[in-house]
């Protein structure tokens, strides 16, 4: 399945590198935990893995193709924002999400995806009227849409706004995804237990002043 290799990647914000050159690789079924202090660029790294942000140097390759190219190496990125229009229903939002990705989905399929995160009943409510936790769950339902069966998961703080039971549910979903051989990359302040045969920890250390160049070591 998806194989990820990150070599000597630096990302700049406002002409300043966020972290020292980063190298790691992940095989199918690997859980990649990205840690680091605030401002170290965790979200930016995830966005780069998703192909939303370009790297200043080095390369990110999914299945031996550069990150910006969508060659079937699919990945689902779920960021801080839930990426949903509040005037639309979960159904309309999810139909749009998969439609833009080139998949047409049926109402049954959308309902099934929402059921995986326990929000099938909300399918026709306005997103704007949902609670933070409900919104997050609807957003996470994207992981289970048809077309994303083999996609890698890129999750930025997925446990925020979720109650303990739902955190456990998500953790079990992640474990199942890993067992299917997907790569899951995740940042989290909460230490939620996830059993993974192949777990990689990537620690980013922020570069405050340009003088402080500390090499990042990715520990397998």
């Amino acid at each position: 399945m998806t194989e990820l290799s990150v070599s000597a990647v630096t990302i700049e914000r406002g002409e300043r590198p966020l972290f020292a050159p980063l190298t790691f690789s992940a095989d199918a079924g690997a859980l990649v935990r990205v840690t680091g202090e605030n401002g170290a660029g965790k979200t930016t790294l995830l966005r780069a893995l998703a192909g939303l942000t370009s790297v200043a140097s080095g390369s990110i390759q999914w299945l031996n193709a550069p990150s910006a190219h969508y060659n079937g190496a699919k990945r689902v990125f779920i960021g801080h924002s839930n990426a949903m229009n509040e005037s639309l229903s979960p159904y309309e939002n999810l139909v749009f999400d998969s439609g833009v990705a080139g998949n047409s989905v049926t109402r049954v399929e959308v309902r099934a995806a929402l059921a995986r995160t326990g929000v099938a009943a909300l399918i026709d409510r306005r997103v704007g009227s949902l609670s933070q936790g409900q919104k997050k769950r609807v957003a996470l339902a994207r992981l289970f849409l048809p077309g994303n069966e083999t996609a890698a998961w890129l999750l930025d703080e997925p446990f925020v706004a979720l109650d303990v039971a739902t955190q456990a549910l998500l953790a079990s979903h992640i474990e199942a995804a890993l067992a299917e051989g997907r790569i899951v990359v995740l940042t989290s302040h909460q230490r939620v237990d996830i059993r993974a045969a192949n777990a990689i920890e990537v620690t980013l250390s922020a570069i405050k002043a340009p003088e402080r160049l500390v090499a990042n070591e990715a520990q397998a």
Partner: protein
Amino acid sequence: MPRTEQQSNDRFNGKWFWRYASPAAFYPVAGTIEKLCWFLAISLTIIGLYIGFFRAPTDATQGEVYRVIYIHVPAAWMAMVIYLAMAFWCAIGLAFGTRLSFMMSHALAPTGAIMAAISLWTGALWGRPTWGTYWVWDARLTSTLILFFLYVGYIALAAAFDDKKKGDRASALIALVGAVNVPIIYFSVQWWNTLHQGASVRPGGSSMATIMLTAMMIMAFAFWAYCIAVAMNRLRTQIIERERSAAWIQSSVRK
């Protein structure tokens, strides 16, 4: 720490023409060009104005007021040329990602806007005694006004980004969009102009005495030299600003 210098050296080694695309390498070159152009600008201005005011005769139809053309026409030319130069550097910058190209474009823009403004102002002052009104919607004046708006848009857009790199690329794109549109705007304004009024009179006209033309051309070269000198100065300031943490800047600042 010499990040920038090293990085640019890595990137630019090998091909000779890339060498001066590095800000560090171009900084002293820009200084030399600037000095040379100041010399040219000042001496050409003195010569041009001397010929224009003390050698060129009074114009038979326009009287003395035609002497505005020695600055009006060069300013109008420079407004146009600088926009093209800007678009050129923006295209290079977007194509090759060379930071110096974006800086070059930023360095040119304010001078281009000033040239457009000067051209409009002198055009109005020339128009008053000639047409009897400060402003006519003449095709060329109108185009220069729109060109001025394009400069303002470019400068404002570049300034609206906190992330300088983003601002570079965003403003470069809008400069290119503008450059593609300039001929169309010019054509449409001309179309509109002939629709609403007859052909326009211009400062100078076609039957200019050779000596007037000579003075105007000398002034045009003086304007070129001035614009290059100012742009080089601004470029050097930008290099200092953006590379301020680089070692070579630090050593040249505190020597």
